[in-house]
């Protein structure tokens, strides 16, 4: 079973420290949702994990291996996939190239069969991608790009999947399907998932743990049940 542990200190932008201190742990097959109001620092925290913002100190461990000093691009090779917010894709490449390129970048000597398997998994999840294999990613709709972005992350067969607001801009039906799929992925492939999300109601259906950020500080952490039962915080942060 994978275990992903991370701790951050002083993450932010130049002089601006957004996250003074934060530690998270997730095990394979589990999902951690990061909640909190806008500007709480969810995105900053996730970016700090993969080294995209300035961090005072960063410690990463995956399955006991220390990845603290590993540069961003190597994390993908170690099995940590990151899907940033805003449905970012390689706009000048086609859907197929987006997926194949992501696969090839991390699988140097993979066989065609495993590639086909991964492609099929992506298409099962998002059938529209199969129809649009030759469309330029930049010309797709916002939601379609979001699907491609997630599919691309899955092409690297991650052990840890980090998603920033993956459902923003997705149709309700797809949100439902996506969470189902993420649930499947975490149980069948033993992948650990860390996700920032506003759609708490949908997320809790598959999430195991919950971390609420407020102004850069962890305001509440625990299992989904614990959070649900904490009346005060539920009202304050989740509006449930």
């Amino acid at each position, binding site marked *: 079973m994978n275990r992903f542990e991370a701790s951050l200190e002083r993450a932010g932008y130049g002089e601006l420290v957004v996250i003074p201190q934060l530690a998270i742990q997730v095990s394979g097959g589990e999902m951690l949702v990061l909640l909190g109001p806008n500007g709480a620092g969810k995105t900053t925290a996730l970016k700090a994990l993969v080294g995209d913002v300035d961090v005072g100190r960063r410690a990463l461990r995956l399955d006991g291996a220390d990845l603290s000093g590993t540069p961003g691009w190597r994390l*993908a090779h170690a099995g940590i996939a990151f899907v940033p917010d805003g449905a970012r894709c390689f706009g000048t490449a086609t859907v197929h190239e987006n997926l194949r390129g992501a696969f090839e970048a991390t699988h140097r000597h993979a066989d065609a069969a495993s590639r086909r398997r991964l492609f099929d998994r992506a298409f099962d999840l998002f059938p529209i991608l199969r129809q649009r294999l030759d469309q330029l990613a930049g010309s797709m709709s916002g939601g379609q790009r979001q699907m491609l972005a997630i599919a691309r992350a899955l092409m690297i067969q991650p052990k840890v999947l980090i998603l920033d607001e993956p459902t923003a801009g997705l149709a309700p039906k797809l949100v439902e399907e996506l969470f189902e799929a993420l649930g499947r992925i975490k149980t069948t492939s033993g992948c650990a998932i860390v996700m920032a999300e506003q759609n708490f109601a949908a997320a809790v259906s598959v999430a195991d743990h919950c971390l609420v950020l407020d102004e850069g500080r962890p305001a509440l952490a625990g299992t989904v049940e614990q959070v649900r039962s904490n009346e005060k915080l539920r009202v304050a942060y989740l509006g449930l």
Partner: protein
Amino acid sequence: MTTAVIQAVLLALSMAALYAAVAAGLTLTVGVTRIINFAHGEFVMLGAFLTYWLYTRFGLSPWFGMAASGVALAILSAAVYRGFLARVLKQDEHNQLLATLGLSILILNLAIIAWSPDPRVMQAPPLLPTLNLGGVTVPGNNIAVALVGLILFVAMYAIRNYTRYGTQMRFASDDPTLAAHAGINVDRVFELSFVIGGAAAGVSGGLVALVLYVQPTIGVDLVIRAFAIIALGGLGNIPGALIGSAILALTEGLTSTFVPQGGSWGFGIAFVILLLVLVVRPSGLFGKQAHP
């Protein structure tokens, strides 16, 4: 009359090959890094000088000189990239433009100090026999230029389209941060494209030494033509660049041959054609049109 036309077309095409060879490496680099590398012209010049010296001092064949120049310029490119270009790549396009201009001034003047501004000629015997067909003559060296130029292009095309690095280069140029998230070592990929571009510059420098004189300033005109070619074909579009160079050289060659005062007109007309093409197709003949 027809032989005159055929002769002119063939010679223009062999010039096209020379321009194309110079542009070959640049198309790859520009396609990836989006930098107009002015120093590419000086890299070509250095390749020409190296080939020249290897022949003149040590009697080494220009074939060898070309290969050696390719290797030498690849190494220099890596040094330049690590030395400062890597940092400049993260800045905006004006800075990149100016940085490569600074580099080009630097290399050009170092070359003038080292070798004086005088032109030199490599008196090597032609690499290939001259082609003589019914009044039409194509000098052997021009054939060699055409061949090597084509090979360079095929190589660039293959690297870009049939290797994993090709896709990685495109990803890296599209969105470097995202590419890093996809597991691509963006810095390495940029460096690689720069090194390959440098190697191509070195080889094309050897070609320059074959058919042209060798002088510290030769890179300046060549690199401007190379930019025109790249824009004509569409940034980063390698077959497009090949056609672009043919258009440029044919316009210039045929205007010079058949229009009175054409030697002056030709150069200008070639660039007017570039402008016209861009008006109709803002991303070059074969460039992908702008996307949102």
